[in-house]
Every structure is written in structure tokens, then in C-alpha cells.
């Protein structure tokens, strides 16, 4: 069975996580590391995909700055999006040649891992044709934006667990005028840690790999000197 290193990074700055992603993508291309899944949470940040439209950013940079929201242009697919506390962000770095050389199947797989996770919380989520992401009714609970280079994936998904949804008011998420929602709003009481464990398990099943912890500390007591 293929192996997938799992890194649970806790709350980490967007730029820092991006650097780590880039480094792992290079290492993945060189075959120096197996597939990776990074699970984390960002401080408030708005990111813009390469093909995004600035008009979907509804606030000026100064307003964002005053609200404590960072802004990053990125090289993923998709339009503008928001990340922040209470949102589970996943960056899978997979060599699709070792799974399926199929970008569409990859995105459907990521969606399925999230749909199956939500099912564990009795949330019936699904897809809307042509609108990538995971939806509950007409509301989007998880966004997806991916970059692929030499069949190695980066960027990924953002699942609203108990995100403060008011922060989405600064943008037109993904350029769509449909509302966003979160697991908390849908009545599921869950911690980020718990959801991330479930997502990792479904991810491993769907992408047919064994999830192994790498460079992770979820719990760490230590003796005081």
C-alpha cells in the first residue's frame, strides 16, 4: 500500500505553510518523500487564485489590514477565498501518477473525503455540478482550489468547522454569490482536531494509502527543568 505522510501543523501562518508546501512539492517530485497530507488552520487570511478577479475582493487592502486579515495572491486554481480560525485546511501533496492521472477524479476524491466526514456528523453534503466544492443544499461548506505541476498536487481544501462566517463578508467566495456555511452552523459540535482525524482517515481510504504521522505533535507533555 502507498504511504502518505500526515502533518498536523496546528495554526500556521499562510506564508509559512506555503513555503513548506513548496518544499514538499519539490521533494515529492524528486521522490525524496512519499505523498503528504498537511492539515492545519490559518490565522485570518484572504487569498486570491491566479485567475481570480480583484472585484470579488470587497474590501480595500487597508480595511483588511485594520481587520487583521492578511492578503496573499497564490498560484492555486479558483478565485478569492478566506481562511481563518475554525476552518480545517488541507493541503494534499500527491503524485497523481501513482494514483490516477486524472485531475477530475482527484478533485472528486477530495470532495468525497469531506462528504464522508460530514456524514459522520449526520450532515448530508453533496456536490453541485460544475461548482467544485462541497455543498449542503445551496450553501458551501468546503472550498477547493488546486495547483498541479508534473502531476504533483498542491493547495487543496478548506472545510468550515466552526469558522466565524462573518469574515466571508469581505469577499465573494470563489466568485460565487451563494452563501457559505459551517459544520457548527449545521448543528455539529466538533473540534478541529477531531474533524481532522476523520478527514485523514477518509482521505487515506479514498486515495488508497496508509496515513502515517510525520513531524507532528498533537500532544506533548514535557518535564519542566
Amino acid at each position, binding site marked *: 500500500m502507498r504511504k502518505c505522510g*500526515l*502533518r*498536523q*501543523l*496546528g495554526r500556521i501562518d499562510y506564508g509559512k505553510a506555503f*513555503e*513548506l508546501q*513548496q*518544499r514538499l512539492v*519539490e*521533494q515529492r*517530485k*524528486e521522490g*525524496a*518523500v512519499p505523498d503528504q497530507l498537511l492539515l492545519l488552520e490559518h490565522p485570518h487570511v484572504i487569498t486570491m*487564485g*491566479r*485567475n481570480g478577479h480583484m472585484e470579488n475582493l470587497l474590501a480595500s487592502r487597508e480595511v483588511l489590514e485594520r481587520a487583521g486579515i492578511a492578503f496573499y495572491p497564490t*498560484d*492555486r*486554481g*479558483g478565485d478569492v477565498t478566506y481562511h481563518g480560525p475554525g476552518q480545517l485546511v488541507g493541503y494534499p501533496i500527491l503524485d497523481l501518477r501513482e494514483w*490516477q*492521472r*486524472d*485531475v*477530475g*477524479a*482527484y*478533485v472528486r476524491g477530495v470532495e468525497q473525503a469531506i462528504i464522508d466526514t460530514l456524514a459522520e456528523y449526520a450532515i448530508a453534503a453533496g456536490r453541485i455540478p460544475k461548482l*467544485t*466544492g462541497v455543498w449542503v443544499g445551496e450553501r458551501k461548506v468546503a472550498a*477547493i*482550489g*488546486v*495547483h*498541479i*505541476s*508534473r502531476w504533483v498536487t498542491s493547495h487543496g481544501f478548506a472545510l468550515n468547522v466552526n469558522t466565524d462566517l462573518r469574515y466571508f463578508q469581505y469577499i465573494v467566495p*470563489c466568485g460565487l454569490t451563494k452563501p457559505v456555511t459551517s459544520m457548527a452552523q449545521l448543528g455539529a459540535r466538533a473540534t478541529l*482536531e477531531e474533524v*481532522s*482525524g476523520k478527514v*485523514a*482517515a477518509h482521505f487515506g481510504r479514498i486515495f488508497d494509502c*496508509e*496515513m*502515517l*504521522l*510525520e*513531524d*507532528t*505533535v*498533537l*500532544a*506533548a*507533555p*514535557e*518535564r*519542566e527543568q
Partner: protein
Amino acid sequence: MTDVVMPQMGESIVEGTLTRWLKKPGEKVERDEPLFEISTDKVDTEIPSPAAGTLAEVLIEEGKTVGINTVVARIAENGASGGGAQAAAPAAAEETIPPTPAPEQVEDTAGKLKHAPPAPEAVEVGEPQGPLSPLVRKMARELNIDLRQVKGTGANGRITKQDVESYVTRPQQPPAAAPAAPPPTPTIAAAPAPAAPAAPAIQPLAPAGPARTRIEPLSTMRSKIAEHMLLSRRTSAHVTTVHRVDMTKVAHARAHNKARFQANYGFSLTYLPFIVRAAVVALRQYPLLNASLDGNNIVYHNDINIGIAVALENGLIVPVVRNADEKNVLGLQRAIVDLAGRARSRQLKPEEVQGGTFSITNFGSFGSLVGTPIINQPQVAIMGVGTVDKTPVVIDDAIAIRSICHLSLSFDHRLIDGALADQFMSKVRQVLEGWSEEVL
């Protein structure tokens, strides 16, 4: 001429939007070098060039959506007379044209070594030991970098693309400086010159001798441990109590069964599973120690899942023995050996470090007598195990030699009072001192 087509990115994908050309007509391109980007369904993909040569013709402009297998460009291969205007430029022999629009500037920063006094030998490009990726080799060749000068930060010190990039963009030393001069250290400002504030003239660096410090970024694990420790200190009102426990009976049970364990199960028998067992018995009696605090609620956990701290080379991790109350000493020892071994070889599964309700850290194995561990959030207590030593103790006014161990318990005083903590510890002590289980 090689046709470049819109690739098929998956079974259900019949078209793609060409979002960006990464090369201009007339530019040279290597085989497998990213040539353009396409966008399909929230996925941006870099498409590598199918051949080396010159980008002769671009047939599809940025922003157009075309079906798969549509020809989007043509590449004139090396040697062939291409159609591009600049294709026949003098670039032919040497790969000296950097793939950026500002060749001069790149030469200025990166070409320094090239125009510096010639290296003693005509060795082309220095290579360090160990494997190098084709990409790094190519960059080094193009930028004329001696890779032995580049510090690798990848796995096993391997040099990555980022390392080469940061080497190129590193702060430049004045060109006069001898190549062997050590980098300027920040301590240079130590001797202020109050008489001449206007002239902080940069002194030519005196040979500074060996560096006094070495700077290394924290690993992810290290910075997460740091974060977690501080978070726990900020969250809980830590108090530690220490109990002295007579482990003589346990020592006998252990000595009696050790060889059998090794022979039958292939692992040794340590003190730890006895202590876990005693903690489980006490946790059953005092479930508040097995709880967590959630805002204004106490969350009682019905499962007893014991986290066992495992020291790693550069950090530590706390895998969890699940349902520890359903295991005897053999089962506990087996679980501990398995989890610790896999923690060290990085083979733990994510769920195996989650869901702990109480933790135990065994610093006695490193010779420590007593410690005051930090609570593993969101738990409310952690037990520290000191070393087990034969010690003279007074029993009924006589001096006896007993196996003594100090057990400490750090608890969250928000939820647990000292009296309860000590009742809990007394129960642990009572189980260990009166060890009676024949069957382990």
C-alpha cells in the same frame, strides 16, 4: 517542429482554459520545463514542454478555452531552423540565457562568480556529495553556482530549488572581500564611536575568528512542542504533588516474569505497565482525573485512554493506549512496546495519538528522580515516573532495603484540589505497594 497540444487531464475532462504562457515566442525551452498553464475545474496545472527547442508559434492566446488535443503551440527543436524571429539568435551553443526578462540584472547578481578571478582549476561546476535533483543541477549550471557553497535544507541535507534560490539572492558581500571571509556578524556594532556619529563607516572586517553562534530554524515539531507547552502553561493552573512508592513487590513480580515475557512474547517486562495499571485502577475510582474542562462544563470520559510520552530524536510524541482499563500487564506492555517502537520509526497512525484522557511520562528511564511534567491539554493531569532505586528505608523502626520510586502528579487546580489529587495518588501507591496479581 513539435506540436504542443492541450493535454488530457482526466477522463471526464474534455477541454481546458489556457490561462498563462510561461514562455514567449522565440524563447528557448527545455524538455519538461513548464511551458504554459491551464485551468480546469478549480485546478490550475503547469504543463511541461514536450520537447527542447525554441517556442516557435503560439496558436492559442491566454484566456481561451479549447478542447483536448488541440494544438496550442509549436516548438522548433534544437538544430532545426525555427520560424521564431529570435530563434537563430546566438544562444545556440551556450545555455547562458536566463529564463527571465532581465538577463543583465541576473548576470549582475548571479554572474559574480563567473567574472571573479578564475578558479584555480577549470572544473565546471562544483558538486557536493550526495544526490542532486536534475532541476538543481540545471539551475546551478545556468546560474554558474558552486553547489558545494550551498547549504542544503532538504531531507538528509539535500539541496533544493529554494536553497539555490536563496543562495542566489543572499546578501552579497563587497566584491573585494576574499571569498573565504566569514559572513559579517551582527555583533560588529559592539564598539560604538560616540565621537564620530556621522561616520558609521563600514570597517573592513577584521578576521573574526570562528563564529560564536550558529543559527538554525526550529523544526516543525520543535515549534509545535514549544507552542503546546506554553499553551498548556497558560491554560491550566499547574500544581505538582510527589508520592514515594515502595515498588518492592512489583520488582519481584517483574523479576519473576521477565525471562518468561522475553521468551514467550519477544519483549521485556518493565515497570511502566504496572504503573499504568495502577493509574487505571485509581482513575476508575476518581473519574475527575480522567475528565477535561470545556468552558463551564466538566467532560467526563467513559473511556480510559492513557497517553504515553515517547522521546524521539528531536522531540517527543504521546501515542495513546486505548481502553487501557481493558488490558492486563501483558496487554499494556505489548501496547507500549508497539506504540513506542512505531513512534520512533514514524509509523504511527493519526488516530493513535488522539483521544488521550490521562498521560504518563517516564523520565525515570533517563535517571531522573522527580519531575514536574506539563499537562497534556485538554487533559487535567499527568503522572511522572521517577527512577526505581534500591533505597534504605525505615519500616517499623528497622532499616530495610526496598525498591523505591517517586511518582509525581501535575494536576489542573482549576478542576482538581490537592486533597483529591493526593487521594488519587494514594490509591496508585496502594495498588503498587500491595501488588498481588499472580497473572500478569
